């Protein structure tokens, strides 16, 4: 080495000054500048795509939180809703929503007459169709809950039909209405008049978050209630199942397990499991939990077990690396003053590793929240109209989840469901952001560096 450095420098570099850039140096600087530019382009591109995605979702979906409503007095005709006149709930329950639809239809015609609004271009039947098909059930439930309303006139607020709602959101125009068999331009004209008269109004729609799913005939009432509840149940159960198993497994593997071929195999398998496509876990779940263990289909419990299988490897990997990050000096010190191995782990290592474990768990849960494919196979991608019951029995009731609702609304035929689908994505994104921000805050607050 000394021989080489003792050689005189080549004349070219000897002449070059440090202050004046040589050809080679310019080249290297240019390469660096190019690399920086690549990085900026990559970031601008991904931010652009993200911005575009958020823009489409929000422009399509934000309108799901506003809904057209009709407010008018309804005369609950005793002859229709209680033909026997007994005011007995069970007898009155025999009267179906089809009869209540007639009551509503008569009432809205009367309401227009009372306000002096002309409706000569719209027949009485068409006028009735402007009211949501959910309204009869709403009135029926109200009457059954309080039979004293029979014969009275009550002012109620019900949803307008999805097409009328779409008109105020720009989805339906007079041009499309002229070709649409479900709505006519005359009905849209009347809707404008009703809005001016104060019968129809557009307002904040909290029922989008609380209502259950609805059929294609009434997109206006479809809500996320069952899906949000189902997702909460799923997350809770995944947490309860995954954290004890995951933490116990990683403590054992890091602190107690001998380093031999078996633990190597386990380690490789855990990493492999984290990369298995989620649909595979769905197939396993169907075979193991539904067909073999006999757990009820479509229930949050089965969904949680399947998602737990999927999330466990992620949690184990995150927990192991945060246990490994605790410096050995802490273990040595604890062992040195006479603590047992278990005391060392539970009194010193685990508390220091806890923030990392927590962060890993929350991020694992966040990715589990967006999972649809395994739920498809265990019957959670379904039309579920009833809310699941209260825990613990409710864990076994049919439920859906947020990403599932996005998927099933996106495949409905009525275009009004597209807005609902995007609205559901917004709710899902809000949940994800909350979880990820919690993870970041926890990490910032408790993380220790050595």
């Amino acid at each position, binding site marked *: 080495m000394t021989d080489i450095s003792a050689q005189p420098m080549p004349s070219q570099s000897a002449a070059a000054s440090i202050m004046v850039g040589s050809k080679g140096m310019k080249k290297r600087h240019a390469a660096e500048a190019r690399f920086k530019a690549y990085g900026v382009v990559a970031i601008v591109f991904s931010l652009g795509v993200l911005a575009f995605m958020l823009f489409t979702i929000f422009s399509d979906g934000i309108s799901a939180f506003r809904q057209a409503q009709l407010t008018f007095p309804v005369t609950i005709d005793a002859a229709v809703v209680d033909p026997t006149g007994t005011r007995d709930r069970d007898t009155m329950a025999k009267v179906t929503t089809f009869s209540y639809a007639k009551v509503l239809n008569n009432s809205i015609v009367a309401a227009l007459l009372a306000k002096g609004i002309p409706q000569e271009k719209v027949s009485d039947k068409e006028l009735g169709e402007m009211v949501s098909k959910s309204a009869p059930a709403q009135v029926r439930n109200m009457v059954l809950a309080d039979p004293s309303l029979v014969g009275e006139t009550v002012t109620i607020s019900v949803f307008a039909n999805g097409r009328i709602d779409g008109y105020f959101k720009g989805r339906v125009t007079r041009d499309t209405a002229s070709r649409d068999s479900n709505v006519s331009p005359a009905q849209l004209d009347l809707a404008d008049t009703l809005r001016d008269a104060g019968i129809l109004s557009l307002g904040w729609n909290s029922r989008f978050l609380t209502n259950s799913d609805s059929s294609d005939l009434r997109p206006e009432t479809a809500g996320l209630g069952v899906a949000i509840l189902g997702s909460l149940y799923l997350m809770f159960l995944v947490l309860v199942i995954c954290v004890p*198993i995951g933490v116990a497994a990683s403590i054992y593997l890091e602190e107690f397990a001998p380093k031999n071929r078996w633990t190597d195999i386990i380690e490789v398998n855990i990493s492999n499991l984290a990369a298995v496509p989620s649909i595979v876990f769905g197939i396993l779940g169907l075979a193991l939990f539904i067909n073999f263990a006999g757990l009820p289909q479509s229930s949050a419990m089965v969904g949680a077990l399947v998602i737990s299988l999927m999330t466990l490897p992620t949690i184990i990997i995150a927990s192991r690396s945060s246990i490994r990050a605790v410096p050995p000096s802490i273990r040595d010190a604890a062992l040195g003053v006479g603590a047992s191995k278990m005391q060392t782990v539970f009194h010193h290592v685990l508390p220091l590793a806890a923030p990392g474990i927590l962060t890993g768990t929350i991020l694992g849960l966040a990715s589990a929240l967006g999972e649809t494919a395994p739920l498809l196979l265990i019957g959670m991608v379904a039309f579920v109209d009833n809310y699941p019951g209260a825990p613990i029995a409710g864990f076994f009731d049919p439920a859906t989840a947020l990403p599932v609702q996005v998927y099933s609304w996106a495949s409905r035929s009525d275009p009004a469901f597209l807005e609902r689908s995007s609205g559901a994505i917004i709710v899902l994104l809000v949940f994800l952001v909350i979880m990820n921000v919690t993870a970041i805050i926890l990490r910032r607050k408790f993380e220790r560096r050595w």
Partner: protein
Amino acid sequence: MKSMHITASAMAIIAVSVTAAAARDQVQITGSSTVLPYATIVSEAFGENTDFPSPVVEGGGSGAGRKKLCEGVGENTVDIANSSSRISKSDIELCATNGVSEIMEVRIGYDGIVFASDVNGPEFAFTPADIYSAIGAQVAKDGALVANANKVWSDVKADFPAQNILMYIPGTKHGTREVFDEKVLIEGCKETGAHALFAAVAEGADDKAKASAANKECMKLRTDGKSVDIDGDYTETLSRIDADKSAIGVFGLSFYQNNTDKLRVATMNGIVPTTEAIAKGEYPVSRPLYFYVKKAHIGVIPGLKEYVEFFVSDDMAGPNGPLAAYGLVSDPELAATQAAVAAETPMAPLE
């Protein structure tokens, strides 16, 4: 290894706790995505009008639904399979081997299949022969079978526009495809004379075997990308047409009726598809819709029989009911179906 033990014991605990959980109290339905919207409409109304919970309805395809129905008897199997085509002999045999011996067949009404293109595109008046000439694998030309070389619609028929041939048709897992094969392709094949040519060269013991071999040949489609199978649902076909305006898609009548602002429907044999035309039997491409009920579950699963009766009641499936409003062509023999449901008559064996 310890983690395995913990996992195993956790699962054991869960399995034990489940046996304590209450029996299933809602009806489980799966099957055809064409029947799915009708079933959800009924499920929703059933939940509103009775004290039973609304049934849980899943999609996924007619064939898959019938297989699920035939998995066996018991609470963790489904009660009803919706189907847009009739149950097959092999399904019934599968059912029988799994102990599902009695099945009730309920026909709910009819559904039309329509051909539609982008709303701003040209109008089309098809016959089954036109469709076959456009996408069949081999077509008859001057009395001989040749590989289909038609590139634009004007190659098929002189008065069609010179627009590229591109058709989105339902994939083979859909019940709709069976109807498409039977009522459009084979019919068209016969009209163009290709069927007779296929039968002439087919191997078979008698005319019947030759005709069925020819039918199989008629169902073969060209593979050069002019005909594309769509395995998803109609929303996928719609978005594909949105992306390529020259395409023609196959839809259910009810789907088209909900998207008249985006789609222009083609006539078939000069008939515009409407519920009235289908009810009268004028529009040729229609099919009955069914659901199949596992009889062993009646009386075990609460609300099952009530749901089936509610489905076929005049208020729901009748000509003025909500199903007809959504696009179902109501069955003129609904009264017979209602009587069969009330008597819980299982279906007769298929011939």
